[in-house]
């Protein structure tokens, strides 16, 4: 259980403090500020113990969120709760920043009151919370009889995340497959580790209580179907199916059905939410390959040549490409020549930043730089940080494909065909590093 929740800005000023249990004294707020936020060195652990009290802290941009407890608790749970708290706040007022928190402090107090009672998590679904929260949704001030009965049915019913009686003129849904590719490659081009963590985000604008079924090219499902009958299809799709290492679903997904048949069926919440989260490690399409060449010419000069190769269909375009080539601390001057895009040496960041707006698949581009170094008597070898890369590509690097999303609503008169469905794939770089 959580004894209290504090929110600080980067200077350590308390923005929000809510104490749930008496065993947390008022001085706990200051203890955290002094010992963690104002501490001289870096954070040494996300859990800090001060005088028999544990502070679990998470930092979002400039804001510190700290959960305080005196009990011996499940650490994973407290952190998950803090993340959930951040999600809920983001859903209500967007980015977590000092200004947003100051402007919405009443709302936050209200949220804190509903989400936790006596330090125990109660209700953390954004959709279900909306009926309890009065701020911002000013319409909540005079509730009609109808709405009141909805609360009761919602609170007692099984479906806590969707209220009844939602109506749309146009039934529409949007699926976003958002993935981030993480890579660590050795200078020789050997993949040291690579994984994709992805999310399927759905925006649903559907009337009534629709029953949805979501299908993707999950290896286990495809193999099962292949055994069942269509044998030639199995051979064809065998290449295209992907092995998912692990996945998490929104609470609306019936897990029992997933476990038994591996089918994803659910009644979606209204509006935007995250349907699932997954991770794959096998057969990842690495959108870019970085080939570094660093040569030290004497003690005062360094020659760097970096080639990037795009490795996807020529018809697709990657965007917002940025390659960051670190330079030694004693760099005095840099000359850069690049074939495409713009490159600049940023002394404050100790790096050459090379930006390319767009790049098609199966292309190659190159940058070469001469770095002049100041002679130093510092014998410390340059640590050679890895070359990192950022980009955005219009496909899923894990190879995930949405096969179908069927909508059934028995009570209202619209069918699967009437629903307008959209899907888009965005692959972004996570930590995409190549050692040099």
């Amino acid at each position, binding site marked *: 259980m959580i004894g209290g929740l504090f929110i600080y800005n980067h200077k350590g000023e308390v923005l929000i403090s809510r104490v749930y249990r008496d065993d947390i004294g008022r001085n706990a707020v200051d203890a955290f500020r002094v010992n963690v936020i104002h501490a001289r060195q870096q954070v*040494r652990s996300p*859990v800090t113990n001060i005088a028999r009290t*544990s502070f679990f802290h998470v930092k979002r941009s400039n804001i510190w969120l700290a959960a305080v407890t005196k009990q011996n608790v499940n650490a994973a749970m407290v952190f998950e709760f803090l993340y959930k708290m951040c999600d809920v706040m983001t859903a209500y007022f967007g980015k977590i920043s000092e200004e947003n928190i100051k402007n919405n402090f009443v709302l936050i107090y209200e949220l804190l009151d509903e989400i936790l009672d006596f330090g125990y998590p109660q209700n953390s679904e954004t959709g279900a919370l909306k009926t309890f929260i009065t701020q911002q949704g000013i319409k909540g001030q005079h509730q009609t009889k109808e709405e009141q009965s909805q609360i009761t049915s919602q609170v007692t019913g099984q479906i806590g995340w969707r209220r009844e009686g939602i109506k749309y003129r146009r039934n529409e849904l949007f699926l976003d497959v958002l993935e981030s590719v993480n890579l660590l490659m050795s200078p020789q081009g050997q993949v040291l580790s690579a994984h994709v963590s992805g999310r399927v985000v759905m925006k649903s604008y559907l009337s009534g209580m629709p029953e949805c079924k979501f299908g993707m090219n999950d290896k286990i499902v495809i193999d099962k179907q292949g055994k069942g009958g269509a044998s030639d299809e199995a051979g064809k799709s065998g290449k295209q199916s992907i092995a998912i290492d692990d996945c998490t679903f929104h609470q609306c997904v019936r897990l029992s059905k997933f476990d038994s048949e591996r089918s994803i069926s659910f009644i979606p919440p209204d509006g935007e939410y995250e349907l699932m989260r997954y991770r794959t490690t096998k057969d990842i399409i690495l959108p870019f390959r970085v080939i570094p060449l660093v040569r030290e010419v004497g003690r005062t000069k360094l020659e760097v040549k970096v080639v990037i190769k795009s490795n996807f269909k020529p018809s697709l375009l990657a965007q917002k490409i940025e390659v960051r080539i670190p330079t030694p601390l004693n760099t005095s001057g840099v000359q850069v020549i690049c074939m495409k895009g713009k490159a600049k040496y940023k002394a404050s960041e100790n790096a050459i930043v090379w930006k390319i707006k767009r790049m098609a698949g199966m292309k190659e581009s190159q940058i070469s730089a001469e770095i002049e170094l100041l002679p130093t008597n510092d*014998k410390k070898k340059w*640590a050679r940080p890895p070359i990192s890369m950022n980009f955005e590509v219009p496909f899923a690097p894990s190879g995930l494909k949405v096969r179908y999303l069927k909508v059934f609503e028995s009570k209202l008169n619209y069918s699967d065909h009437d629903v307008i469905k959209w899907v888009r794939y965005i692959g972004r770089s996570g930590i995409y590093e190549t050692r040099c």
Partner: protein
Amino acid sequence: MPYLGGEDTVRELRRALSNPNVQSDQLRYRNTILKVIRAMSQGVDVSGLFSDMVKACATVDIVQKKLVYVFLCSYAALNPELSLLVINTLRKDCQDPNPMVRSLALRNMTNLRLPSLMEYVEQPLTAGLRDRAACVRRVAVLGWAKLHNLQPNSEIDAAVVNELYSLLRDPDPVVMVNCLRALEEILKEEGGIAINKPITHHLLNRLKESDVWGQCEVLRILQRYRPQSEDELFDILSLLDASLVSPHPQVMAATLSLFLSLCSGLPAVSLAALERVRGPLLAACGSVSRELRFTALCHIQVSLLLRSLPGLMGAHYKRFFCGYAEPAYIKQRKMQVLVELVNDDNVTMLLDELKGYCTDVNTDTAQAAISAIGRIGRSYSDRCLEILTGLLALKQEHITSAVVQTMRDLVWVCPQCSDTVCLALEGCEETLQDSQGRQALLWLLGVYGEQVSSAPYTLEVFIDGVRSEVSLGVKMELLTTTMRLFLCRPAETQDMLGRLLHYCIEEEPDMCVRDQALLYYRLLHCGIEETQKVLQGRRSDPSLGVLIGRPSEPISQWACSFNTLEPLRQGTVETDSTSRGSPEHVTFEPKPNTDLSDTLNCSQVEKVPSGETGRTPFLARIHTDTHKPLFLASLPFSYPFNKCLCFYMPI
């Protein structure tokens, strides 16, 4: 935070609140109250407005009500008498047709935290337990726990307890879980809620209905249950199998913990469960959020690998390679895990990787990497010594210091490395700056003095500079080292030993150093054999053993601390222990107590910034110094140690 102009603000707010024009206009009234709350959260003392706010409480506007309640709950403790006025409004609200209003009133009534109001609260709480809206029941159930918490010594009403037990069968899963939580708190004295077979089965069957937080709670409480037969046990286990591989790390951890406690008598089943969670655990280690990654790493490091199942993660060692941008605390944990995973096949790869971390920008990380290499050196000494010697050539202050300390620890375990170490030591005293590193160097010089040809010259530099030496540890170590060197190379050392003893006894202001010098002086009077007996003790401790081939510990040793804060703390203690004096002390260090109440002690766990040691009060240093008891322990005769403080010795 003092806020300038606070009094003016309060005066202005009071005027606005009591203005009838404002009171009649709902929007203006609400905005004024909003201003009060804003002032409150900025740290202005607005407790003077309490009576005005109590009046504002009587309204039909829910938004206004919520705002006022936020205020009242913060200041009720300061105004118990005035709070009595609110109770009436709150009790009236408990009868409201809107369930939201009812739950709000009930929750705030219990949040006022005033023991004097208890008698007014009990009746609405009892009614709340039977309310038809689940959200009211949720609040009412926890309300009883709050009430009990306010007056922990009061008699518990048996009827309420019974009612709470029966509410375990409530259709709403949150009410059910809240009942568990409330009973757990109310019956704390009796060891918490009684878990019997029907309750267990009921909870297990409804586990899937509750949200993840509820599941964690249920799983934790079920740990107390002991199945009556083996069949029942296996039924429970197969029911829990799905949550064991749950994608939510907190549920997975809670289930594993329950598994381990249920199967405490069946080690084979526990091992199978560990195998099964390998996937989810590894996934948590690669999780996007660094805090969760840290938690998972701590659990892997402290429980699974180190102790019972070294083979569990062996094939996945690459997962624990550090990313460049990861925070230092994750990097250090990953290295500790990597050390445990080393085997003949991956040792080259692992050492290459660790070597890369040694030049990390963060000095803590670099030192952790070096000591990790040292740990691996216990089983693969040649390769590691090669790397360590290579690092000395960098002539970096913090690297050299860490390397010398690591070598000292390595030699203590593997005496066969001493030749290589002694060769490497030449010349590194110039780069060493910090006291830890110099202490390590001195220890090595003392113990292997006859193998290092330049040892007396190095010592001479130290002895010449002893006047300006600030570190107590270095001075103590210097004394011992000079004595040891004197025993093996008397001709070269005699003169400087005399100078050092003279200085320490005559001029040294620190009592500890002076005592030690006096002791050595008298020891020399007893003859060279006696001195040798005392000073030339063990040079190494092979009993600490190499890493490979260690018998695996039974799971039950750590099962009780799994999924608690314990593993997250233990690591901190372990990393801190690298900053100690001589290796002999390792064996004397008490093992970290697994009892939580002790490890919570902030003096042990609280992280002292590394530069802090110089600023600790003088007395504290003497008492924490491990030299004294150790030295006494190795004395062959009983020596009136504490008396020599007032003993005057002519020299």
